[in-house]
């Protein structure tokens, strides 16, 4: 299977602010460690899920993958070419191939531009179709996301959240990308609308042969939509495996805790113990060693000393835990 998009040891830190007193005391500038050494291959045609709690770096990873954030170190490669080394036409080509769907359907559309203008702009900048054919192509795009042709003349505020998310999807599809990174595309929507958007994505994936990176904290969606899943904790990937196998036999204690936290309909299946203790530590000051050890039920002395790397450890897929041997 060919690898389409690659993250190679991606690290992204955001400098925080410090006050005058801290400056005078020469306290080092606080740093939010959003991503630390993320390595991830996205294969052509697959749907990869990225899951984790709020604040684990999922969205930062998404934004690095589409070129919105330049990484501090490491590289994003598309079909082998480093994004940081691209210029002019190559960058435009990258943006044509790698698109994004945003979480908030209310903020992701320019409120002053009609839907038709929003879509035409993408078509015109990338010369997708000749000028004369733009209007017809806009109608096709709207049909693709199940919106009527007259939607083109209206402004975003005339649409519901679900409809706006469809417009956002149409905009991403306008440039005919190979890969779409969807950053929590349904978490801002009503549950009834979520299913429609998810089904639309599944339909488009089959029809257009899209590669999808699906970022969410909803494990049911991951199980429903993805072939592989990466579990993130405090800026690192802790487990990366085939979705079905990983859900059946999670290897990392954090993955196990996450899965146990999914609400169960069968009474006998409900766990009584809390899935995971405590709160997500601040990414300003992650714990030493394995970042999960303060909340881990099986942590040993060594866990607070050194950081476990993501590797197979005698299993079928990589996991970042010293105690997951075999």
């Amino acid at each position, binding site marked *: 299977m060919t690898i389409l998009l690659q993250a190679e040891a991606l690290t992204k830190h955001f400098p925080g602010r410090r006050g005058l007193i801290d400056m005078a005391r020469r306290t080092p500038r606080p740093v939010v460690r959003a991503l630390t050494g993320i390595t991830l291959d996205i294969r052509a045609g697959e749907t990869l899920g990225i899951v984790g709690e709020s604040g684990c770096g999922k969205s930062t990873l998404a934004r690095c993958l589409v070129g919105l954030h330049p990484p501090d170190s490491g590289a994003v490669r598309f079909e082998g070419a480093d994004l940081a080394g691209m210029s002019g036409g190559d960058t435009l080509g990258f943006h044509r191939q790698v698109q994004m769907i945003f*979480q908030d359907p209310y903020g992701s559309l320019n409120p002053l531009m009609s839907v038709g203008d929003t879509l035409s702009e993408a078509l015109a900048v990338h010369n997708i179709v000749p000028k004369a054919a733009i209007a017809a192509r806009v109608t096709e795009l709207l049909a693709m996301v199940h919106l009527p042709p007259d939607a083109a003349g209206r402004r975003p505020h005339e649409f519901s959240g679900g409809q706006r998310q469809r417009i956002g999807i149409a905009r991403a599809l306008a440039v005919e990308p190979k890969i779409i990174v969807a950053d929590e595309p349904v978490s801002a929507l009503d549950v009834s609308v979520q299913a429609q958007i998810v089904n639309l994505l599944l339909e488009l994936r089959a029809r257009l042969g899209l590669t999808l990176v699906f970022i969410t904290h909803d494990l049911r969606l991951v199980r429903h939509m993805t072939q592989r899943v990466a579990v993130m904790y405090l800026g690192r990937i802790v487990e990366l495996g085939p979705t079905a196998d990983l859900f059946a036999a999670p290897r990392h204690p954090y993955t196990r805790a996450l899965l146990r936290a999914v609400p169960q309909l069968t009474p006998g299946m409900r766990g009584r113990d809390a899935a995971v203790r405590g709160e997500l530590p601040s990414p300003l000051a992650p714990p030493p060693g394995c970042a999960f050890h303060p909340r881990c039920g099986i942590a040993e002395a060594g866990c607070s000393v050194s950081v476990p790397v993501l590797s197979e450890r005698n299993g079928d897929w990589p996991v970042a835990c010293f105690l997951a041997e075999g």
Partner: protein
Amino acid sequence: MRVSISLIIGSVLLGAMLIAAAVPDWFAPFDPLAFDYDALSMPPSGEHWFGTDQFGRDVLSRIIHAARVDLQIAVFCVIFPLVLGGAIGLLVGWYGGILDAVFGRLVDLVVTFPFLVLVIFFVAVLGPGLVNVYIAVTCVGWVPYAKLMRAEVMVQAQSDYVAAGKVLGYQMPRILLRHILPNAARPVLVYAVTDMALAILLGSSLGYLGLGAQPPTAEWGVLIADGKNFFTTAPWMALFPGLAIVLAGLGFSLTGDGLADLLAVKR
């Protein structure tokens, strides 16, 4: 789109001022500059509705003819600061960093002085006259526009539709001018219309002080300044120009208010 009462009243007042400024001769019963020694300081009457001044000039005619000058003041005292401040705010809001730090100190420097004092300082250096008033007001008045524009641009720049534009590979000028500017400019334009009311007051104040429009040009502030010496004997000379200023100011304020409702960006 909801048209409010304040917008209707405001535009009627401004419309009247516009018409008076465009074709004053249609409405003014007398030549605003013609002396009439048979009718010095006459109180309001059937012939001279607003009375006459100490040279027998018809006050109503002078007020109507002054509308053109005052409208010009209102527009020019706003448009130059708007363009200059808007451009500065757009760049500072987008690029931030060092530019923003320099901008912040410059703003501190300008706002340290009371607005009118600084304008009077510039006019005093440059010399009295309307053109110099515009230069002075531009030098001082760009600050609130730049601050407002900067804040709006910073908010818009963080929005997802701008991120979507970047992901689509749009160039910086396209994102800044086609996406951010139209969204950021609306509150600034609304502020500008409201600011025109203050510009009329400023122009009149400077006229009153002898720094703005020069006699014999009829200008509302100048008319009040002329009339103040006769206020006990001929109060109409200052009263009616004052009323014109109030109505014009009200017109701009109400229009700005109404526009704010009308142009509020729906999300």
